[in-house]
């Protein structure tokens, strides 16, 4: 589904990714762990198409296509979804209005009919249950006045609604208490299927108790330096990241 080869990326002239390789197959959940500044969030943002990051070398193939040639919205239409570490507050744009625009543009791009108001609302109700989201939040302005936990839930709710093929979670666990973490994780688990894949970027192991990965990768200094089964996460938790830095 996704094949990243020798990826190098800069921001403001500073190289963050320094030759990263990763392959993700349908149905898999990959966890990417690593110390702060190792390039985890950069990888997530590069995959979603953030323009501030400049790819200088390497390739990313997604469903047989050159992903780096696509605009952020085109990536979304082809099934890529990035759950933000810091979801953006946008006053004056209602959550629902925005989601309906996003969903219908995506449907249009995929040759499907646009959803009418009634069908859309039914879908919203169904997906909101998945993350136990307060329906009042739906009509509010996008993320404005949402608590940290509500913002993260809103990310997973949007992911459920847009049904991506490849979901990328960028530190979705940061700032969540244990209840919110459980709700968010169970939302993600319900979306898992044989044709979907997830990349879960996290600093801590605790999210992986709830979203159990197939593969754990350790990132340091802009590259993946070690990959292994889910037990690797426990090992990291135990030993900390210092030994990783030594290898890097």
């Amino acid at each position, binding site marked *: 589904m996704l094949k990243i080869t020798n990826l190098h990326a800069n921001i403001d002239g500073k190289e963050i990714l320094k030759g990263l390789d990763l392959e993700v197959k349908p149905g898999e959940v990959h966890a990417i762990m690593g110390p702060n500044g190792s390039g985890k969030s950069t990888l997530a943002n590069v995959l979603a198409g*953030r323009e501030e990051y400049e790819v200088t070398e390497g390739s990313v193939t997604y469903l047989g296509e050159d992903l780096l040639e696509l*605009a*952020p919205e085109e990536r*979304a*239409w082809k099934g890529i979804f990035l759950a933000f570490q810091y979801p*953006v507050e*946008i006053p*004056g*744009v209602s959550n629902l209005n925005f989601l309906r625009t*996003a969903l219908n543009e995506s449907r249009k791009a995929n040759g499907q009919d646009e959803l009418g108001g009634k069908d859309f609302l039914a879908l919203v109700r169904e997906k909101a249950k998945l993350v136990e989201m307060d329906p009042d939040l739906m009509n509010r302005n996008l993320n404005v006045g949402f608590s940290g936990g509500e913002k993260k839930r809103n990310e997973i709710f949007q992911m459920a609604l847009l049904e991506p093929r490849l979901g990328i979670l960028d530190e979705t666990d940061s700032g969540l208490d244990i209840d919110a973490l459980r709700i968010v994780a169970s939302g993600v688990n319900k979306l898992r299927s044989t044709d979907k894949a997830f990349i879960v970027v996290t600093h801590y192991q605790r999210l992986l108790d709830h979203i159990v990965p197939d593969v754990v990768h350790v990132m340091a200094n802009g590259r993946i330096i070690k990959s292994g089964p889910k037990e690797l996460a426990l090992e990291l938790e135990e030993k900390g990241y210092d030994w990783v830095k030594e290898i890097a």
Partner: protein
Amino acid sequence: MTTLTQTDPKATVLPLLEGSTWPGAAEALEQVHALPVPTSKTERWKYTRVGRLFNEPYAVPTGETDPALPARLPIDVTRVVFVNGHFRADLSDDLKSQKGLVIDSLKHHLSHGPVKEHYGTLAPTGERLFTAMNTAAPTDGLILLVTKDVKVDKPIHVLHVTTWERQLVQPRDLFMLHEGAEAEVIIEHIAMDTPEAFVNSVRECVVGESARLTIHRLQHESNGPANISFEGVRVASSGHYSLSTTTLDGALIRNEVKVSLSGPEAHAELNGVYLLNGTTHCDNHTYIGHDVPDCTSDELYKGIVAGKGTGVFNGKVYVKQDAQRTRAYQSNANILQGDDAKVYTKPELEIYADDVKCSHGCTIGRLDEQGLFYLRSRGVSDAEARKLMAHAFITEVVERVQNEEWKAVLTALIDAKLARL
């Protein structure tokens, strides 16, 4: 020795200003002769060039034409129509349906007591050429007189239609709200493809004790005339004056408003939205004078300037020495799109009292890139994301409109314009 005589650039308008019998017309005409046409050296006109308005002669406007009027607003209003500045009773609604209220042609009321008392008091001609020109020969205008405690039962929609090129239209309004009175007025200018026409308006508003006057101005004259206006306002104690100006189209637009808060606990709110492209030039000039203690003012102007558009904002808040416990807020925020758009903004606070709470600020920037990326990463196209972000930027101002029906009309007009920016 030879003397070089220079012709007065105002020669193109002077013949139109002679012979008016309106109050103060003769003195104003003398002022017109004496005052120079503003240039870039005139501080108040630094960024707005008006010299070209005087390049060719104008015609005297006539109201004797029957333009195709636009569809009525989708809200319940009393519509008053002016064609080329002339009042048209036949095109207006029944204006006598409510007691304690005068809505009429100002020309018919010049000899009445309240008009004599207030006319000309809030629009000094000494320094302002365009105000002097208007006072020298007003075309006609609206009198709105609301007597004590009368609340006008629905908004008054004043529709100004300009139909001919190269005419000088000079609307002159006088609004007077007595103690406890309330009125809401929507003032809309439309033009029937009239480039090079020149609309020069003056409005005076006397807001009595505990009275509330709400004015919404809508400017959307595509390929329209130059539109220059001065609005002089005085608000008595506990009175409330609110002006929102929405500029969507036009050629050269200058909106000047001067508010005097003259009684304790008077309040003024000035809001503005300007969405400019093409070569539209829009200049908002505001002045709020806190003359006495315990008054409040709040000012928020936001604009998006694209194409070869130019946005100018100059807002001054003046707090007199006695005006303790003043609260005054002012903000101007701009989004620039493209390399040829221009914005000049100058907020000014002049404070002589020591116990005040005042703030001002201005910004010029681009649409929030983080927000754009967030929307696009969810599958909203770049164009649609820009529209949503622009809408989000402007909405703070529109949200201040209290009249929900009018807010809906305005939102639709703004969104339609945003789609064209």
